[in-house]
């Protein structure tokens, strides 16, 4: 069993309305916030013990389902 911690972020050129809205609220409250970008974080438990295979699988499911390659980038780390 392996655990993958995945972060999915919006590509830089894509607007992030959520982040901007949170940013505006925090700056209006006088917090020293320059910018916020909001993405996704996922924890995937795999019933696969081979790290190399797990890595392949994770790339596949990130591209297919967990991230939208048109607008998002992803990265992940595998943990034993």
């Amino acid at each position, binding site marked *: 069993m392996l655990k993958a911690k995945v972060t999915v972020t919006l590509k*830089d*050129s894509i*607007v992030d*309305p959520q982040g901007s809205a949170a940013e505006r609220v925090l700056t209006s409250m006088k917090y020293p916030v320059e910018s916020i970008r909001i993405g996704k974080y996922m924890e995937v438990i795999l019933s696969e013990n081979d790290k190399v295979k797990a890595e392949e699988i994770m790339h596949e499911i990130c591209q297919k389902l967990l991230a939208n390659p048109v*607008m998002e980038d992803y990265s992940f780390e595998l943990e034993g």
Partner: protein
Amino acid sequence: MEPKVWREMGLNDEEYARIEELMGREPNFLEVGIFSVMWSEHCSYKTSKPILKKFPTEGPQVLQGPGENAGIVDIGDNLAVVFKMESHNHPSATEPYQGAATGVGGMLRDVFTMGARPVAVLNALRLGPLEEENNKFLFNGVVSGISGYGNSIGIPTVGGDVYFNSCYNGIPLVNAMAVGLLEHCHIAKGVATGVGNPVMVVGARTGRDGIHGATFASIELSEESEAKRSAVQAGDPFMEKLLMEACLELIHAGAVVGIQDMGAAGLTSSSSEMASRGNSGIEMDLSLVPRRESGMTPYELMLSESQERMLIVPKAGREKEVEEVFARWGLEATVVGKVTDDGILRLLEDGQVVAEIPAKALTDQAPVYHRLSREPGYYQELKNIELNDLELKANVEDVLLGLLANPTIAGKEWIYRQYDHQAGTNTMVVPGGDAGVLRVRGTNKGIAMTTDCNSRYVYLDPYIGGALAVVEAAQNVACVGARPLAVTDCLNFGNPENPEIFWQFEKACAGVAEACRVLETPVIGGNVSLYNETPARTVYPTPLIGMVGLLEDLKHVLSNQFHSEGEQIYLLGESEGELAGSEYLALFENLEAGALPELNLQEIKKRLDFLLELNCAGLLLAAHDVTEGGLAVALAEMTEKYGVTINFDTKNKLKTLFGERLGRIIISTSKDDALRIESQAKTAGISLHRLGESGGDRLRISVNQVMCLDIPLNKYRSVFEQTISKIMETDVGF
């Protein structure tokens, strides 16, 4: 300049030569970029212009015809309806959620830019069959996108239509229509006039999104466009809502000379079109444009398609007021230039001139192409396929259940329950009716709206099919009790450089024009989307029609359901349909062919007038038009609560039960009024057939007094109601 440059931007060599001629010199890179988007099909209509000229665009009700951001129609009481339909096909093929969402956003801006408060959205979707995963993915994404954008901005989505056909595999059509209301005195326009008036950019900041989106929308989808994927833009409905409130406030305060949304080709099209309409020039310093990303070049700033932005020309001296209104809504408004008198679009960067183009050269002097037109071989071939000998493929019950389980016919609740269709608390007929109906507050009136087009008909016979799209819209509007007022269109076709496609385009538009003329519904605006094809296929010609109608008295709103026992059921129009282009033929004979029934627009017009007359006299209880699947399906659709007992006297059971022919309407009336209707029809020379009556909880149909269908409501209603949901809720979910 290297030919490679302009060719890559989508200009051909003659077009480039013309640019040099108009400019009187060699244009620079930025200038060529600006020409390339303004002269793209999407912005210039260079192919479609000669054809669109043939649409009727005038009528006593028309306050604003084509040429502005949206058309306007008078509804009395000093009020007017503003509406427009537009495609977002290509962006939706690549990113269905954002593609559809920004399509809705763009439509709404076109409407509030006219000074109107948007009151409703509709959406017309065309997709490949749901057996294929990718089509499910697209369908799911598009519906979520419309829902995501429309719902959160608080404008109800009250109607639309959807068809599934393999001609749309990989080429989904996503057309959105927005409808707004305004008082006559608040009409705003996209003009820049008044030398010295400031030019302001308001709303969202400009980023690098969707650069070349406009050209992107006009080229065939291919491997190449895969690589241009970043050209997709994302929307921010929250920002749009604020922008809408701020713009309406400003327009109503009388501070605005001209206003236009930044749609395709953003700053480029808005500035050159406003200058051109105002016979003025515009000078802008691009270094003043607020931006989201650093290091943007003038080229990127001019071509960016960042959403939720507008260009405003306020009255000189009222800049502060504009800034204040926008600031209150948490938005930016920035002066970036001024109106000039030289007719030139002049762009500066830090005070240095970087482009100088006559505005009219961009808007009015684009090339116009008279494309070759040739009748395709398939046309006569499919028309001549003999269908008259066909016999019913299965028993009537199985055919009916098969048709009801066809996603094109099945109930669309899975779609519209994801749309807020009641925001504003004005929706009297929610989706599922024949047309959406909203009351108009402060009056006793309502407005009805619908989108329609059966593209299989158009494919088989573009002229008749084009006309039928208008007929279907008109009959849907009439079936809720409203008088058809006017039309907006969205013409979705393949590559017009192919003479056979151009033939479809030309013929279909001629059919639309003729139907609009006879039905007295002028075309007040629209949109053209060409190049809807992949190397593998071309979409069926799909001239979508959006129509708005007026309900003079709210109490005459009509439902498409039987609501009581003993309603007397009649058919207005011919009792026999044809198999040509029918769902039956496609589903049970695997054939899309045949000669469509001859078009009789005058007769249909007479029938619709008769229907409205009966309704105004308070004689009708329900009405529903007969479309895909024919009479049996139409009856099944009307029987949510009460069953019916029907008899047809006919020689041809198949054509009577499942044949299709537009212009036919099922109506119901009380026992007391039945005779009156019969005699009025006789006097008016309208063909009217008594079919039977409502009651019980079964659908019972006999032909020549022999029972051929006797099926409990819940058996077929569950098929009708759950088909799409069942397909979509299995493993799409995420």
